[in-house]
């Protein structure tokens, strides 16, 4: 840290006694980083960050926030910027505008150092010099920009191949796990699914016209490394339909290495549906009918076990956090959709479009799709989307007898037709 006189082109540096306390400790300090921008950044960075620190210290003192919203956008787009205007601009004028550009990352968050440096350069010139990898929705957040510079910053980011993400009542930036790129558990091509859907629906992101936000998240398997079920309106999770693949030799090696009792305690007893039993010869038996594809045993015995070959995705609709009706998790709406061929991807894309369309047409203002489903009931949602009811959608069938069932037989006929159709398909496929 330099001393007060020399720095910041002669301006006073705001004292930040409370923030200074956040420079100790082993974890990297955001305060140290921001101070460096104040002290060594581009001229624009320095000014803005000095006042930013001043305002932040003021917040720490008074335990109150001092930003308010507004409207800022770039040419051609209606969203993607989070505008921030200071309520204490009189004291801290240089950070009176401190907007964030939400920028979509490459699917799976892959970067080269080269592209990162380019981003830094742009943001040093036009913004505050502060970037977050990533926001909770997955955006690269270029934080701290004047209204004037917003367009410039965007133009340059756009030139290097990046686009704005979502904000407001719109399709939001999506996330996908590392999956296929590195992970052996991955059951589908997350990058392709992610890019196919979002790029198809891009208009809904850039020109906000939905009743409220709509988020997609893509996890390659049920470990759900991007928290899709809780945090996406449309969660795509990899799974498989056939049997878990077992390499019995490697099972034996695992048991030999970890011990028998340990294997029983951590694998057999922890299977949620008692589907696994350990044979006397230290191989295992999996009752695949009872297996719910939870991933646990595969996680523990990563060398010996792996997902089956008949892979695809399941789709859960309606996750969100607390506003208005309380937290919701996505409901299993599509138990299985194969996802391998071009046609498969087309189907997924088509389904995504139909759900967003349903949302656009049926949700109330500021209502998430999960709330819509709660309001109209799952059966009505399924009917609207022409999805056939399936036992996998529920933990168990209804327990309440409050329902009018005079058309039960017709409904049952649909099920039997479907089963016949599926049986037919299976026969013809064989």
């Amino acid at each position, binding site marked *: 840290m330099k001393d007060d006189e020399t720095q910041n082109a002669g301006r006073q540096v705001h004292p930040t006694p409370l923030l200074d306390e956040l420079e100790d400790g082993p974890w990297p300090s955001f305060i140290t980083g921001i101070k460096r921008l104040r002290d060594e950044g581009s001229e624009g960075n320095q000014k803005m960050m000095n006042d930013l620190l001043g305002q932040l210290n003021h917040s720490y003192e008074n335990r109150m926030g001092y930003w308010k919203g507004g409207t800022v956008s770039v040419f051609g787009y209606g969203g993607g910027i989070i505008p921030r205007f200071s309520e204490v601009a009189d004291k801290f004028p240089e950070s009176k505008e401190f907007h964030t550009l939400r920028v979509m990352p490459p699917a799976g968050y892959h970067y080269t150092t080269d592209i990162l440096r380019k981003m830094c350069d742009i943001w040093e010139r036009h913004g505050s010099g502060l970037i977050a990898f990533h926001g909770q929705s997955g955006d690269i957040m270029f934080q701290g920009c004047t209204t004037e510079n917003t367009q410039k910053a965007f133009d340059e980011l756009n030139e290097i191949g990046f686009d704005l993400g979502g904000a407001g009542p719109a399709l939001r930036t999506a996330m996908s796990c590392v999956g296929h790129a590195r992970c052996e558990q991955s059951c589908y091509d997350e990058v392709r699914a992610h890019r196919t859907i979002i790029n198809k629906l891009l208009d809904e992101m850039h020109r906000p016209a939905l009743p409220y936000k709509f988020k997609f998240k893509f996890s390659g398997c*049920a470990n759900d490394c991007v928290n899709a079920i809780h945090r996406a309106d449309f969660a795509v999770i990899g799974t498989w339909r056939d049997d878990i693949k077992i390499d019995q030799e490697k099972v034996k090696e695992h048991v030999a290495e970890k011990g028998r009792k340990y294997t029983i305690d951590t694998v057999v007893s922890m299977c949620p549906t008692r589907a696994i039993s350990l044979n006397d010869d230290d191989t295992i038996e999996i009752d695949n*009918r*009872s297996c719910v594809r939870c991933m646990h045993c595969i996680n523990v015995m990563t060398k010996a076990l792996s997902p089956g070959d008949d892979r695809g995705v399941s789709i859960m609709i309606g996750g969100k956090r607390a506003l208005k009706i309380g937290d919701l998790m996505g*409901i299993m709406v599509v138990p299985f959709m194969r996802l391998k061929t071009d046609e498969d991807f087309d189907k997924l894309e088509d389904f995504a479009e139909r759900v967003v369309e349903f949302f656009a047409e049926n949700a109330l203002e500021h209502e998430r799709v999960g709330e819509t489903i709660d309001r109209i009931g799952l059966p009505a949602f399924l009917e609207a989307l022409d999805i056939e009811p399936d*036992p996998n959608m529920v933990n168990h*069938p209804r*327990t309440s007898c409050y*329902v009018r069932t*005079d058309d039960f037989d017709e409904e049952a006929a649909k099920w039997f037709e479907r089963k016949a159709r599926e049986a037919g398909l299976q026969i013809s496929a064989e």
Partner: protein
Amino acid sequence: MKDQPNTPRTPDEVGVPDPFQYMHPVMKANYGNWDWHERPRPGVLRHVAKSGDVIYTVRAGTQRQMDVFTIRKLCDIGDKYADGHVRFTTRSNIEYLVADQGKVAPLIEALESEGFPVGGTGASVSMVSHTQGWLHCDIPGTDASGVVKGLMDMLHKEFVQEKMPNRLRITTSCCQINCGGQGDIAVNVQYTKPPKINHDLVANVCERPAVVARCPVAAIRPAMVNGKPSLEVDEKKCVCCGACYPPCPPMQINGDDSTKIAVWVGGKHSNARSKPTFHKLAVANLPNNAPHWPEVNDVVRRIVEAYKADAKHWERMGEWIDRIGWNRFFEMTNLAFTKHHLDTWTGARKTMNMSAHLHF
């Protein structure tokens, strides 16, 4: 009081009778001090007290709705082959208490020869829990005793042997009020049409605000019909629950054709292993086909057979289905999963699968 012979007798409010006056002496002597038990054969329990005393229980099925001749016959058997002490179980089976092992076999023989099946213990199908139906109730959609008789005729073999994975408990209810309990299998009336209102009677018979309050979906509103105060039902809202019928009989919920039967599965009262659960819809809209209800019996049979064939020892119906998945349950029983299986009642969301757990 006593000197006015025409005044009715004032009741002696004895309350719950003291059972010790009727209890078998071995049970009395060892009250609260039992050690373990075993089942030497289906229908027979052998309880051993800490004192070393032993009591045998022989359990037999009855029709519950018993004529005095049947009861006296049971008493005769009790006097002749047992110790004159009996009890009835939660499921209306009779139990003979016998201290002497030598009496057990003759007792069984006597019971069986008089047509009382001996069984209902352990992993068997015990007596169906029984309600009133057309025999006595004022709101029934079907009979009770007849339904029970049909089911127990069919399942008689499973009563006298213990070959199920765990105990299997069946319950019936003759209207949607559901006096029967939760069941591994529950055979219940399910109305399918909104009440038909006899507007001429409503004003005289029904306390209208009370009826309005009784509807779970607020589908009833007061209305003037033909110039008389009556009630109106919003048929779009009505879930055909029948709750309005008891307080207002002119709102007839039953119809010879529209009163149907639904079969539910996976209810469980005990806390063993899993927590108690409610039963879940398996199939609705089965015809109310007295006197044999063949369609209902057929469904029950398929469910019992699937459970028997596939469940692991100690798994109750619901626990078995949870393990193998509802998909496979519907497959194995050849029943259909429909939109009506998706819960729509309060708390419905918590019954949805909000996870990636899947059964294929």
